[in-house]
């Protein structure tokens, strides 16, 4: 691949870059993860096990970690609130687990991904970056994650999906940014008359006649 999509993702999420990043029209310096979070971004990373889940911890302990304000009062973390939050997301994202203490490394790929998404949602960010959100999960779980993304968009969130699967792009996206060899080729709107051949040629780096 090497199209540069993960690099774009990194630049938006804590990696210093030379260019200008504007979030909701305002120029921001996002050279630190915490600045990106503050600017209203959150990331569902590509490497779920290496960078997404806290494998040794249970679902209850995983979900609040991006935004502990929700489970804290007067300086102390409230177990009741942790439980409430975990139950809410286990229900909302249909996470299949024995109970909220289920160790996350022992969940299936799709359920682990849902825990990572729940962790991001608890942050209540307006813009959620998802790098290969359905890699390594099976067909059913993929459909579920797609449904979650559509629902989030329905709630007014912006989701930026970084993917190399054409099918996913066609099913999910409103606008499609095509990249090849580290550069943006074109931004095309999705719709019934979408030309998938055109997309494939673009991301394969072929010259397009105007």
């Amino acid at each position, binding site marked *: 691949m090497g199209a540069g999509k993960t690099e774009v993702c990194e630049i938006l999420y804590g990696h210093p870059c030379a260019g200008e990043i504007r979030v909701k029209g305002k120029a921001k310096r996002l050279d630190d*993860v915490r600045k990106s979070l503050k600017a209203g971004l959150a990331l569902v*990373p590509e490497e779920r096990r290496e960078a*997404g889940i*806290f494998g040794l*911890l249970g679902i209850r302990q995983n979900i609040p*970690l991006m935004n502990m304000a929700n489970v804290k009062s007067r300086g*102390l973390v409230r177990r009741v609130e942790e439980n409430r939050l975990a139950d809410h997301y286990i229900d909302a994202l249909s996470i299949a687990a024995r109970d909220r203490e289920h160790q996350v490394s*022992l969940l*299936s790929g799709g359920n682990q991904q849902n825990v990572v998404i729940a962790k991001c949602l608890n942050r209540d960010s307006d813009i959620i970056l998802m790098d290969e959100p359905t890699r390594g999960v099976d067909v059913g*779980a993929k459909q579920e994650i797609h449904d979650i993304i559509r629902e989030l968009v329905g709630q007014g969130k912006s989701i930026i999906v970084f993917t190399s699967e054409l099918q996913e792009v066609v099913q999910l996206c409103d606008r499609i940014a095509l990249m090849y060899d580290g550069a943006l080729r074109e931004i095309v709107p999705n719709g019934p008359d979408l030309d998938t051949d055109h997309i494939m040629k673009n991301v394969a780096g072929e010259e397009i006649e105007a």
Partner: protein
Amino acid sequence: MKQTGTLPGVMKSQTFILFLVLIALNIFFALMSDHFLQLGNYFNMLKQSSALLLTAAAATMLMMTGNFDLSASANLAFSGVLYALLAAAGLPLLLAALITLAAGMGFGLINGLLVTRWEISPFIATLGMMFIGNGLALVVCGGQSVRSGLPENFRDLMNAELLGLPVPILIALVGCTLFWVLTNRTLIGKYAMAIGSNRNAALLSGINVNAITLGLFVAVALMASLSGIMTASRIGAGDPRIYEFFFMDVVVAIMLGGTPLSGGRGSIIGTLIAAMIVIVIGNGLSMLNVLIFWQTIIKGVILIVAMILNQKVKLGAPSRSAMPPADQLGAAPASLPAQ
């Protein structure tokens, strides 16, 4: 779905087994020696263990992040000697203690900065600081333990009583409660566990990994330094060679208590019970006139057994799962009973 053991469940039972071992040891020594099962002896043991409990509690929290501090015992020796020297020089004890704590904190700052800013492995960084600390402890007192010229009230800290309880026991009680609350009920504790479980995920979740790690290195150094002051008060001297056994006891307490070197989980209660086991074994064997050298060997054996147990918990965990492997599930939430 079948009844399965979550990790907290396993840990709880591991702590419970430790507790049973502690009780069994008490019964064993009570039967073997007439002097063991006496209130005075228990007060004595708790007094002796107060320094160990404090340092081990702090070090457990640090170990949850996957870091550890080999220099804690050297810090204790250095702090004890420095405190005795300052007291012998005529400084008020409170001032001497504050200066000592500040110097001891320096160990934590250096350790923390070496690990977080210069990304040196905690093993190398704190091993270096252990050598430096041991050397410093010997240098400042010329290799001789500081005994002469100490003020009369030098030992008061460890001998005084408050509300009918010896002060060192109270200090240990307050300190351990504090670290339990920090671990289980505050952001620092939650973040420490998260960092040990997955450092990358912690960074991407916006957790200030370096600040938490640095802070915990400083906390361990402070507790080690306080332990040095308490130990100096207890033995009535600043002894630069006090560290040997202390170091071993801290390591055995944490490992036996169920906190792995790699972090990600851990238990303050487990550490405290394990520390009491170490203390009871030391005290009990002394009463049976077992040489301290043999005690060292026994503690070494305990450490290895503890590591094997820890390894078993870790390796055993996945097989306890009733969930199918990651690549097979995900599609089947409907087949699972709702909780």
